[in-house]
């Protein structure tokens, strides 16, 4: 049994094992089955209104929670003062419940993803299609990781569901195997893929930083200044040169031409405002998209 966090009883929960808890769980299950049967047998022309209603109801809770006066300085285990606070408490308690429902659905969807992988690669393996050896490697790794990962997790569960602190002295074969597969292989392969980016940056920069136009030249110059400013040795030597010209006077105007100052000016006065402007556009675009999805106005490239 997994460890369970203590929550104050609310509309959405009850004390574990109590009659109210069992009642709510059974009622929720029955409602889910009834809804499933209704949806399954709904006529085709009713499906769109059902989807639109479900989408709207799912989103309206988040909108209400944002708009409705939120309880000030709410402490756990307290009761609301008036009707407004009652609604605010209810909405605030509903959000984590919706999140849990969403996570539960996502967990089941992961099963669909795993099924897709198994189907594709098993078919390729059985029929000896092109690159079947890669499929064999994938399936072997998937089974090994799942098996040893689960066995390792089981070995660390205490009688009350809490995870045991297992020291390496008491490790068994499954613990070593999971450690080898995860920390020894997977983490290091992740690191190797990440390090490939360094070489790809070189090849991308070689193609991108060329004097083809005025914009490309400005890009090249700015990139050169920023990269040099981030190189400690170059920045140090440049600063020494500036210091020799200013005679060590920290208030001299020439200090503004140190590499780090130029870099900061490019970043603070050119780069950051541009990024913020792009962020404004993206934020408004996301708001518009979310509004269209919530109100079921979205008609993209596919049929509605």
């Amino acid at each position, binding site marked *: 049994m997994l460890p369970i966090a203590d929550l104050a009883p609310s509309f959405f929960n009850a004390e574990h094992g109590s009659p109210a808890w069992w009642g709510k769980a059974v009622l929720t299950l029955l409602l889910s089955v009834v809804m499933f049967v209704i949806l399954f047998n709904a006529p085709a022309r009713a499906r769109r209104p059902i989807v639109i209603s479900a989408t709207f109801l799912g989103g309206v809770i988040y909108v209400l929670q944002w708009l409705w*006066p939120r309880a000030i300085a709410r402490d756990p*285990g307290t009761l609301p003062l008036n009707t407004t606070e009652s609604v605010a408490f209810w909405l605030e308690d509903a959000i984590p419940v919706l999140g849990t429902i969403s996570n539960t659905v996502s967990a089941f*969807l992961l*099963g669909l993803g795993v099924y897709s*992988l198994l189907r594709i690669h098993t078919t390729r393996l059985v029929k000896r299609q092109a690159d079947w050896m890669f499929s064999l490697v994938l399936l072997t790794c998937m089974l090994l990781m799942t098996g040893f990962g689960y066995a390792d997790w089981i070995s660390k569960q205490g009688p009350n569901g809490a995870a045991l602190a297992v020291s390496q002295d008491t490790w068994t074969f499954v613990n070593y195997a999971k450690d080898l597969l995860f920390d020894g292989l997977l983490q290091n392969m992740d690191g190797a893929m990440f390090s490939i980016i360094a070489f790809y*940056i070189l090849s991308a920069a070689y193609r991108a930083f060329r004097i083809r136009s005025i914009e490309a030249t400005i890009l090249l110059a700015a990139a050169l200044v920023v990269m040099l400013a981030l190189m400690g040795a170059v920045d140090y030597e440049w600063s020494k040169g500036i210091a020799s010209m200013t005679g060590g006077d920290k208030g001299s105007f020439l200090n503004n031409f140190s590499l780090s100052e130029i870099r900061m000016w490019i970043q603070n006065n050119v780069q950051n405002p541009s990024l913020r402007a792009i962020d404004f556009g993206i934020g408004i675009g996301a708001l518009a998209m979310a509004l269209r999805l919530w109100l079921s106005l979205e008609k993209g490239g596919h049929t509605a």
Partner: protein
Amino acid sequence: MLTAFGTLPFIDLTFGDQYRDTGWFGIVITLSLVAFLLYNILRSKKGKDLYIRRIGGLNAIDEAIGRATEMGRPVIMVPGLGGLNAISVQALNVFAHVTRTAAHFSTPIRLCCADAAVYTVAQEIIRDVYQSEGMGERYDQDSVRFISDRQFAFAAGVSGMVMREQAAATFFLGEFFAESLIFAETANAVGAIQVAGSTQNTQTPFFIAACDYVLIGDEYYAASAYLTREPVLVGSLIGQDWAKMLIGSLILVGVIGSTIQMGPFNAKILTEELKDGKLVPTKKPRPMNRKDTFMSHLLVPSLEKMIIDRPKDPNAGGGE
């Protein structure tokens, strides 16, 4: 603000944490933006022909698919690493358009998903596209596949697919992180034509350096309106432009107002400052900075610490 509104019949704003001090301003601005969007959506439904400027990356979609068809190589689409949210739904909208064109030419497609929810939705969308075009028999169930939800395992899987299948066109639209350059460079290595777009500003420069066409910023969200020219989507795009003008005006008013308020060369000296919703004397007189201005206070409410006596719940202590 709160006393001006008083107590409405069923809503008591005095208990609204988000409405305290100047917190209402953000809500009013957001509701204004929503009003702009909805008004322009209604306006567009009246049949007004609204203009959208040319977006190169989206014009290149047909060119990319045509190239893939001529070369007999597949089109690979990647909706990013994010979960099922507005970003991935927008990516799938664009991929549905790509798939519709590819279906007409019998060009093979591959849609690689890193999230199981996106995979499920993508599968339904792509199948619907083929069926709506009357080409249900051309739909390959394995063309939409779930690769992995681990970032670099997904990157390795997609890169391997690009290399093995020698993709002729690749579309990278959605949430990308460090693996964006891996995708772009791998596709470049096989000579694929690339169209990319991400809402992550940190990845856009990598796409610009490595890809042929890039959708920057809100061009990403304009894609579905541009491709389909649906009145609702075009109206929403115009509403977004109005929203941007409002924000631009606010910035201009803020800059001018703050400059006037702070005085030339930060000359104003303060002896009192706003702290936790109350005016308190400063430790010593100091120059006014931008956080002391009216506009800064309007956007960043200064909240008084409050403790409210609420009765204890006698049943509190355990629940799940």
